[in-house]
């Protein structure tokens, strides 16, 4: 916007201390700049005149739109923070990133032995059923729990460096996403090994369920990360609530159709079960990856036949997931608002 041509062409009396760095090939627009300094420092004035200047306002009252715009501008920082967290996690370990594959692989192996040998429940490929729900749940749980403590744990950064603080919470969700990717890889290998095909035609439903999950996690991340600065109990409370209570409210270890559906409808409480926004998302993953909708023959005597998945059409899943998305978006804006209100005093509370 503002031309700096006049200022930049002012020569300086004393040349700076360091010898000029080996000059990289200069873009043509710098040729006209005859200032000795600009030649010595190719990062100098030459390119500056053409850059658009962003106006930023620091105030206690910034609307959500302006802050969303700032987050968008800092998207590269988000990527760096996610990369940093993953790098730091496996720094100085010999196997490095391989560990993020080994962990879910070990879990799968142990589950296979436990549920295939010791705790036989008779459901064929129960491990696949369990792990397809667990995939999405792990993403949600690690993301939300990590995000809750993220502002407090990065106090040094928050107190000294200026950047949209929302990025910190979102980065926690981002790195949970990276670990989800590794888990999916392991899951895919496992499914090939036990030759259990997913419902190929419904693969797109995974995306339909994943997007609401991201929005929901981000919303909770913003909300909890900011509240935790003022109320440090949040972190411990969330570990218990999400890790234990919420987990068991979702049909992951047990199946909705096989275990609770009949009892719930008898008491007219089906709606209560589906108030949990994670339930439809987890069930969508199970539907696609486990893919057995009909009756499965059990090898136990007490339950000779059982249905693990409801016989819903794909549209039912889409509608259920869309409802969660709607809830997620509303929560996200509430989260942005709360975060924005509380973020102003982060630096003094930490």
């Amino acid at each position, binding site marked *: 916007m*503002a031309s*700096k041509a*006049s*200022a*930049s062409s*002012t*020569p*300086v009396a*004393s*040349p*700076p*201390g*360091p010898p000029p*760095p080996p000059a990289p090939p200069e873009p043509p627009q710098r040729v006209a700049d005859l*200032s000795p*300094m*600009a030649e010595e*420092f*190719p*990062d*100098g*004035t030459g*390119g*500056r005149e053409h*850059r658009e*200047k*962003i*106006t*930023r*306002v*620091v*105030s*206690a009252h910034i609307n959500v739109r302006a802050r969303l715009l700032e987050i968008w*501008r*800092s998207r*590269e*920082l988000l990527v*760096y923070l996610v990369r*940093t967290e993953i*790098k*730091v996690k496996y*720094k*100085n370990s010999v196997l490095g990133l391989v560990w993020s594959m080994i962990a879910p692989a070990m879990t799968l192996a142990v589950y296979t032995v436990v549920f295939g040998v010791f705790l036989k429940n008779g459901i064929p490929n129960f491990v696949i059923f369990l792990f397809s729900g667990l995939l999405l749940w792990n993403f949600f749980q690690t993301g939300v729990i990590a995000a809750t403590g993220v502002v407090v744990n990065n106090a040094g*950064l*928050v*107190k*000294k*460096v*200026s*950047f949209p603080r929302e990025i910190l919470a979102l980065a926690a969700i981002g790195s949970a996403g990276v670990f989800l990717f590794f888990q999916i890889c392991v899951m895919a290998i496992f499914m090939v090994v036990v030759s259990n095909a997913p419902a190929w035609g419904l693969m797109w439903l995974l995306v339909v369920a994943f997007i609401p999950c991201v929005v929901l996690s981000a919303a909770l991340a913003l909300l909890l990360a900011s509240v935790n600065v*003022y*109320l*440090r*109990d949040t972190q411990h*409370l969330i570990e218990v609530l999400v890790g234990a209570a919420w987990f068991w409210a979702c049909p992951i270890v047990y199946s909705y159709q096989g275990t609770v559906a009949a009892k719930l409808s008898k008491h007219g409480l089906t709606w209560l079960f589906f108030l949990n926004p994670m339930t439809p998302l987890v069930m969508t993953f199970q539907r696609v990856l486990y893919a057995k909708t009909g009756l499965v023959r059990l090898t136990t005597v007490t339950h000779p036949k059982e249905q693990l998945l409801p016989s819903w059409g794909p549209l039912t899943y889409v509608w259920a997931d869309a409802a969660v998305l709607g809830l997620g978006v509303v929560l996200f804006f509430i989260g942005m608002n709360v975060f924005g209100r509380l*973020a*102003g*005093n982060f*630096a*003094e509370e930490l």
Partner: protein
Amino acid sequence: MAINAVEVQEVSKRFRLYHEKYTSLKEKVIHIGRTPYEDLWAVNDVSFDVKEGETVGILGRNGSGKSTLLKCICGVLQPTSGQVVVRGQLAGLLELGAGFQQDLSGRENIYLNGSMLGMSKKDVDRVFDDIVEFAELEQFIDNQVKFYSSGMYVRLGFAGAVNGDPDVLVIDEVLAVGDERFQRKCMDRIRLFQSQGRTILFVSHSPDQVRAICNRAVVLSGGQMIGLGPPGEAVRLFRETLLEAGDTLTISEHDAPPDTPPEAGAPPLEYGNGSTGSPIVVAPVDSRPVRITAVTARHPGTGERNYLLTGEPITVRVEFEASSATNGVVFVLEMRDTTASMLLRTDTDQLDAHYDVPEGPGAVEFSFDSIPFLDGEYDLVVGIQSKLGGVQYDWQEPAAQFEVMNPGKAVGFISIPHQVAMVSVASDAR
């Protein structure tokens, strides 16, 4: 003509000082509604504009709100009321290397730090080699930052920030890092930034630095802006606030406040431009035990001339008035050139002269046998302080001037007696 790069608009920042801090749920419930706290206005209704390309210093003694104001400008803190408008990319150097990840290498940290300063990967790629070279860390760039020495750490921090492409650079007392050579390099880089028309906001404890590089300076005291003006005047006002602090110290030391009533007739000092409202001016302090009343520079032997020639003597007479008998008084004399560079600083303590002044007027004289300066006008700065230098009783700058004319043909700053002779090369080589 010039656009404002930074607009500070009626910014106030309140801190709540809780006498006890309750952060857990249990404590919050137990003490609900009755957490004792005090309000502290760290910054109180401060407004000023910084034009594009300008370098503005912020002066103020400890606890005057400098750092809080700077944090508000950077966006680390949100002001309680008012707002700050920043045009262009801002790079804040509140603490060098604050954004570094201990476990990452210097290389990775440069990229991380760059993205925190709002640079894209391409931007960082372009200046990466400059950063490494500026920080002098070519050898260690792939080592983890946690193994760096503190000097290497801050060098990398400074290099990362100044080699970027910020429009506004905010520096908080971080220039006192590294060895002297690195400090000079930092100052050179700041001068380069100025020449490129970038805006700099600069906090320093050193009035000399402010005088040397700033176009204007803001003086803060107790969270309020008490002055805004040319660096020389701002430094003078800043010294006034320091003197005020020194006085309270003196009183508690001697345990007997001198009971001189404040004079109402003293004209209020006025600094600042019209756009920033009316800055509150420090009241002249009249309770100093020893005050400078007059400073004169006499040059005997110059006759009618009001200047002296290089090599001629000069006598500086400092007249003072003691409102109470004070022991261990030290008189300080500085000579500065027109760019405010200090040429000489001497004091009576250095000269092994111990003075206990009785109540009433008095005078000391500094005599110089020969002034070696070549052409120029020189300022005399005079101060009176306690024996250990902890309490400043008075400080005047510039207290007086003198002018020197060079009768010879030598060019430069000082005259050094020298001879020249032709020597035979043949007789020298053996």
